[in-house]
């Protein structure tokens, strides 16, 4: 109900509704009791009127009798009667009749014969028609009554004796009962008076219309008890009084006046009720507003709090319940505000460094104008992992805190520094162009070159920075961070401090990006397979090993070589999931073959990330133990570039791996910048000359010279030298001649599945080469 939607209305409607109910009840009761009072009053008036009329009729009759007596006592009248002078008597009767208004005058003999009759002067005597009146007169000396005469009119009749001095005759006098009579009676009583006799209304004080209305009703209204009736739409109470034997006097009391008094009372009450209700409406709305107003204010405050606006305090206006509620709201507001502040800090702040986190940075970038120019950079510490590993996490954390503080000190006011994860930071500087970005990057790196002092110990960290520009390199944070990250990896690989995303390129094309997602599924679906390429000991012409090469049996793209997905696996870190699987497969395969008598050293390739992963050593130990393999049954190949990423950490891991007894091999030797003196310091056993040199042995004397000297130097350092990419017999012969220990390439055998490799090697063993 719309009416009850607000508290204010509800209060007002309930109050006003109750009042209206009470008022209506009161009006109803007044109307009801009014009717009862009208009825009672009317009946009282009618009863009083009836008594009055009754008295009036009695008195009237007595007066008539008296008047008749006075007449009958007149001496000359008596003389005329006594002397039986008929003409004189008639004349006297007429004269006296006119004196007192009697229309009928008769003289009766004592035995009831009409002697003289003013209405029928010439007619002979006849018996008096109203014998009962005469009898009453004989009994009581006189009598009176009402009778219908021959002329059709109703008369009040009195019979009195003529005394001379004893009763000598009777005089009868008749007074017509007409409207004038009724009107006179009515005047004295305040009632309407009508005389009803057989044949209808004989006399009435009513107006002609009311009178004719009464004519229609009369038979039903002649009760001697009061009854209510309606004439021409007006209400009356009526009572009938006996009037002689044949007639009745009908008294009508009009309710009009009494009703009018009550109508007026009701009208006044209605005005009082209406104005009371009006006042109540105003009052209760006012009250409701005073109650609901603060409640509404609280509701608004609650809405503000809901919308996250905690700035406005909830006003506590009154000491009542609402005030207490408001106070509750206020403490709730401050509580929520402080909790939200805490939550915001947790959500947007890196708890370790106190710097904004990735989420906060994302919002900061998202809030930028679409065309706003900004620099987004990703910074990764170069030597954090060894510190963390060597000195423990608490130290690592303190290093990160110091780095954060140091970097934050360099941030301009229109920039933001955030910690993304681990030792990776990101920063945004609004409005930076390339030159200012370069200058800023230089400043940052310089600051990082300063050693960090912890408990008197100096730690070198340093870092690599990748810089992307908005909007040139993208607009959303993911794109910008990815570009900056690629640039950062590039800078780290090249050890050049920082790199711009524009110089590094776009990174993997979109189809490769989707491939990264697919790789995870591929691992689950076992789409990755290992192919094995045999390694031939040139001197003995025996297969001494095999390099496990990762292939992706892609359901749509077919068999994919590692060069098409490994770089992205490395960039995305997915390599950390592939490598353990690969190493497990290789170890299992090695164990399998060893049981079948195929004794080859299986080599697996490690990426830089794998090498820097401190879990690698543990993993290798577990694999060897699990498959009961001698450590020398497995070989790990590491590229130069992987070593150069973090030479110190790489060295420490290599040392541990070597300590276990695993064979270690430098892959793609000669393609990178590793010096032979550096290689010398590594605990490796094998040097694999990059295939680019082998491919051009026949054509490039320089390359041949490099290969020859590398073989010589490798041997001098006690390393086994492996040549990859042997594609012709000439190359093979040349290498054999050059003293290369092991050869690998298409000319010897292509990479093949484990099953094919087993078949191939048993076939080769069965038919020894010439």
């Amino acid at each position: 109900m719309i009416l009850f939607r607000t508290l204010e209305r509800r209060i007002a409607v309930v109050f006003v509704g109750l009042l209206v109910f009470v008022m209506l009840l009161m009006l109803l009761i007044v109307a009801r009791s009014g009717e009862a009072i009208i009825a009672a009053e009317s009946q009282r008036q009618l009863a009083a009127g009836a008594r009055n009329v009754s008295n009036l009729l009695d008195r009237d009759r007595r007066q008539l009798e008296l008047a008749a007596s006075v007449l009958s006592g007149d001496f000359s009248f008596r003389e005329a009667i006594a002397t039986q002078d008929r003409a004189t008597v008639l004349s006297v009767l007429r004269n006296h009749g006119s004196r007192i208004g009697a229309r009928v005058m008769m003289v009766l003999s004592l035995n009831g014969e009409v002697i003289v009759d003013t209405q029928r002067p010439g007619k002979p005597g006849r018996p008096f028609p109203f014998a009962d009146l005469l009898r009453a007169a004989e009994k009581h000396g006189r009598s009176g009554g009402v009778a219908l005469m021959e002329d059709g009119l109703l008369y009040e009749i009195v019979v009195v004796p003529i005394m001379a001095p004893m009763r000598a005759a009777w005089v009868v006098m008749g007074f017509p009962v007409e409207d004038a009579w009724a009107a006179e009676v009515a005047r004295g009583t305040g009632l309407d008076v009508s005389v009803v006799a057989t044949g209808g209304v004989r006399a009435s004080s009513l107006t002609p219309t009311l009178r004719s209305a009464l004519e229609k009703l009369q038979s039903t209204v002649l009760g001697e008890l009061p009854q209510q009736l309606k004439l021409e739409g007006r209400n009356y109470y009526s009572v009938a009084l006996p009037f002689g034997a044949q007639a009745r006097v009908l008294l009508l009391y009009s309710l009009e006046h009494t009703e009018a008094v009550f109508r007026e009372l009701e009208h006044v009450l209605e005005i009082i009720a209406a104005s009371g209700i009006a006042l109540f409406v105003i009052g209760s709305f006012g009250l409701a507003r005073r109650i609901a107003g603060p409640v509404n204010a609280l509701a608004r405050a609650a809405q503000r709090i809901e919308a996250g606006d905690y700035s406005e305090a909830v006003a506590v206006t009154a000491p009542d319940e609402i005030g207490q509620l408001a106070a509750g709201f206020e403490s709730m507001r401050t509580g929520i505000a402080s909790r939200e502040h805490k939550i915001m800090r947790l959500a947007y702040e890196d708890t370790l460094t106190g710097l904004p986190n990735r989420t906060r940075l994302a919002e900061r970038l998202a809030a930028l104008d679409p065309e706003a120019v900004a620099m987004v950079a990703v910074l990764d510490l170069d030597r954090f992992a060894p510190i963390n590993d060597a000195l423990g996490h608490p130290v690592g954390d303190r290093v990160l805190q110091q780095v954060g503080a140091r970097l934050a000190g360099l941030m301009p006011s229109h920039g933001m520094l955030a910690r993304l994860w681990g030792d990776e930071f990101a920063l945004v500087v609004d409005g930076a162009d390339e030159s200012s970005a370069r200058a800023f990057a230089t400043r940052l790196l310089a600051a990082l070159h300063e050693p960090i002092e912890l408990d008197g110990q100096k730690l070198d960290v340093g870092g690599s920075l990748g810089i992307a520009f908005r909007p040139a390199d993208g607009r959303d944070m993911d794109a910008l961070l990815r570009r900056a990250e690629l640039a950062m990896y590039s800078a780290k690989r090249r050890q050049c401090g920082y790199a711009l995303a524009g110089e590094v390129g776009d990174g993997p094309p979109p189809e490769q990006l989707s491939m990264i997602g697919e790789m995870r599924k591929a691992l689950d679906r076992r789409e990755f397979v290992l192919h094995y390429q045999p390694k031939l000991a040139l001197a003995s012409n025996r297969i001494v090993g095999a390099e496990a090469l990762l292939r992706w049996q892609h359901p749509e793209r077919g068999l994919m070589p590692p060069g098409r997905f490994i770089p992205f696996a490395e960039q995305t870190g997915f390599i950390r999931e592939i490598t353990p699987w690969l190493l497990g497969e290789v170890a299992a395969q090695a164990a399998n073959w060893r049981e079948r008598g195929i004794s080859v050293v299986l080599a697996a390739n490690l990426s830089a990330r794998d090498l820097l992963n401190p879990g690698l050593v543990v993993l290798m130990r577990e694999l060897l133990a699990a498959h009961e393999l001698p450590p020398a049954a497995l070989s790990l190949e590491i590229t130069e570039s992987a070593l150069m990423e973090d030479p110190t950490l790489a060295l420490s891991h290599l040392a541990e791996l070597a300590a276990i007894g695993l064979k270690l091999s430098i892959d793609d030797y000669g393609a990178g910048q590793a010096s032979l003196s550096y290689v010398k310091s590594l605990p490796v056993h094998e040097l694999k000359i990059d295939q680019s040199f082998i491919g051009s042995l026949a054509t490039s004397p320089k390359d041949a010279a490099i290969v020859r000297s590398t073989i010589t130097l490798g041997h001098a350092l006690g390393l086994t030298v492996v040549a990859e990419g042997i594609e012709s017999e000439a190359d093979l012969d040349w290498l054999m001649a050059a003293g290369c220990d092991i050869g690998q390439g298409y000319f010897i055998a292509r990479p093949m599945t484990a099953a094919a490799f087993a078949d191939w090697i048993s076939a080769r063993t069965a038919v020894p080469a010439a």
Partner: protein
Amino acid sequence: MADRTSHQTGRLTLRPGLLALVLAWAGVADAASLTVRVRTPAGAPVEDAAVVLDPVSGTPPQPRRRATIEQRDREFVPYLTIVQKGTSVDFPNRDPFKHHVYSFSPAKVFEIKLYAGQPANPVVFDQTGAIALGCNIHDWMEAYALVVDTPWFAKTGADGVARIERVPAGAYRLRLWHPRQKAPAADTGVDLRAASRHLDLQIDVASRVVAPKPPLDAGRY
């Protein structure tokens, strides 16, 4: 009141005088007396009944006589007067105000208009019959006179007994009459020889309706 009472006593002395005249006439011949007791059928004594003896033969003596009907204390006194035809009747007014005595009775129609004291001339009742007397200004005043043609008559007292003295012996017709008799009584033949006779007679009469007199000291009349 005492004065009025003594006045009345003075008037009463007239009647023994009148009676003495009758007795004087009766004493001439042999005389008898008749006692009549009149009662109602219920046995109550009837007052004011006239007992009249008419001689069956002969002419009774016609003495000139006078009678008086007073108006005293707004009443006629006596209520019934029996006179022999030819009697002059005086209507002395003993009240301090006037009276208007009238009669419409056929035996004697007359009126003595408003007068005080003794009217100059008496009214001669010269025809037999009953005469109702009234006063025009005091409706309740009512008296009756019975005019007879014989000197032998009497009216009953409160004990209902009337006595006629010194009636000559002979045959008579006894007539009984009462102003309020309900029906005329039949005459009775009476032969008077002995010295005295007693008769018991009955007549039914209406009770006298005494109209209330307005009090004099009310100052309204």
